[in-house]
């Protein structure tokens, strides 16, 4: 084999995996990706293999296509649908796929058609897709429009987007329609509730690991999932006091302390939009991570029932 030293070094890299988690598989995937030799990529741009765990409902197929296409080439999608397949076997399959990609195999093609989101070529005086100051769809996308801000009343632009179902900072399956001004969530709505997960996903170990990862302690999160101590400083202190306070459930800081001590949280969570709107992005994500997946599911259903 005439491999360059760089390519040989690349082979020893942990497999960069972007996880698309389906119903019932959150705990399995989180445990799997805490192994040595695998690396959870937080964005598809950083990944080479897309791991699809579980059977997706039909309306999640199009988002899956989007995430799949965002993985740079060469890429590979791996399905983990068989519940009986062990983590070891999947890890082996991931490693084989990675070796193949490093060895110059061609990856998968795009799943989505190669067309911009809106027709724009040739419109406007410079062909940029719009006329006037804010009109048209320059480069295939419209520009943001103004709206009143909830914190300080400046009418600046609002950025509305649907986030999920495979956003790494949200519970799998949850699709939120968020309106942001700057990095503050002005408006939140649930488009799809998260996928149902078995009680295993509520394990204090996994809940604390999710929060640790958001606090910038990925290594500590892995150690916790593997059953060790987090081995990090200023854990509880880093979560602002009073953030995400829920009646009877304490705030995010107290929940983190509980998870680290091994006590699961049993909560009556208020509807999700009320919980999130008005929060700065990092705070909102911390609040979400501090809730066990089952409570988030209940919170979204609450709103649907109402």
């Amino acid at each position, binding site marked *: 084999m005439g491999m360059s030293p760089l390519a040989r070094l690349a082979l020893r890299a942990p497999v960069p995996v972007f996880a698309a988690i389906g119903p019932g598989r959150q705990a399995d995937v989180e445990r799997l990706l805490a192994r040595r030799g695998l690396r959870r990529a937080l964005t598809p741009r950083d990944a080479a293999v897309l791991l699809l765990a579980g059977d997706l409902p039909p309306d999640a197929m199009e988002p899956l296509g989007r995430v799949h296409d965002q993985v740079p080439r060469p890429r590979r999608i791996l399905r983990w649908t068989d519940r009986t397949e062990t983590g070891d076997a999947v890890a082996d399959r991931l490693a084989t796929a990675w070796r193949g990609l490093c060895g110059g195999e061609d990856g998968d093609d795009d799943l989505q058609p190669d067309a911009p989101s809106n027709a724009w070529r040739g419109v*406007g*005086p410079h062909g940029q897709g719009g006329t006037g100051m804010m009109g048209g769809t*320059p480069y295939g996308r419209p520009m943001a429009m*103004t709206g009143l801000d909830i914190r300080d009343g400046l009418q*600046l632009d609002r950025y509305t987007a649907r986030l999920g179902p495979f956003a790494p900072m949200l519970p799998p399956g949850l699709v939120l329609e968020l309106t942001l001004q700057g990095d503050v969530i002005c408006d939140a709505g649930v488009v799809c509730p998260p996928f149902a997960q078995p009680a295993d996903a509520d394990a204090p170990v996994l809940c604390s690991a999710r929060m640790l990862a958001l606090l910038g302690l990925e290594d500590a999160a892995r150690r916790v999932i593997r059953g060790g101590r987090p081995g990090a400083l200023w854990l509880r202190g880093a979560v602002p006091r009073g953030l995400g306070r829920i009646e009877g459930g304490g705030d995010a800081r107290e929940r983190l302390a509980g998870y680290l001590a091994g006590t699961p949280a049993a909560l009556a969570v208020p509807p999700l939009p009320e919980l999130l709107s008005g929060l700065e992005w990092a705070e909102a994500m911390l609040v979400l991570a501090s809730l066990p997946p089952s409570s988030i599911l209940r919170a979204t259903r609450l709103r649907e029932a109402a």
Partner: protein
Amino acid sequence: MTDLIVSLLAAFAAWTGWRVFRVDSMVRASFSLMLSFVAVGGIGVVLSAPYIGIATIFMMAVEMMVMAIFMVMFMMNPAGLNPMVMVHQHRISIAAGLLAATGLGVAILSTPLPSNPVPAEAPVVAQLGHELLGPSMLIFETAGVTLLATMIGAVILSSRRGRFGAADEGARPPGLDPGGPPAGRRPESGGGHHHHGGHS
């Protein structure tokens, strides 16, 4: 050699200064202004004003960062996705600019300029320090008071919570029906929302 570098830097400063008003993206405009300042700072370094030169780069990098933030915050179409010129009295302005530049240029070329270059290896930073603490002490402290007034003024003007209630109260006329759009303003339509760009 010095002359060559200085003229290149001066040309660069003028060119980036010109780009400020020619690029569509406000971020590019701000940072092109920053490059203009960096070039001036570079001239300072070459002309044995190390402190003033480098400090210009330092201060202006910070100020243009803030400038970019505010430009993007308040300019319509901040990234220039739809290229558009937002100018008024264009001809007069060009004429005024040219007139000022040529007038100053003629004045410079026709005046005999004194020549008394700063001695090499002069302790210029220490001289400045002694000047600040000695003869110009009053200027130094006055600058402090001015900056304090600026800070307080900026806080009062820009923050919402004033001593007398929220600063934007009364800015939106009440709606015709409860919760409706404010009265006396055109309803927000997509695309042409406050569209002032009719002057090009």
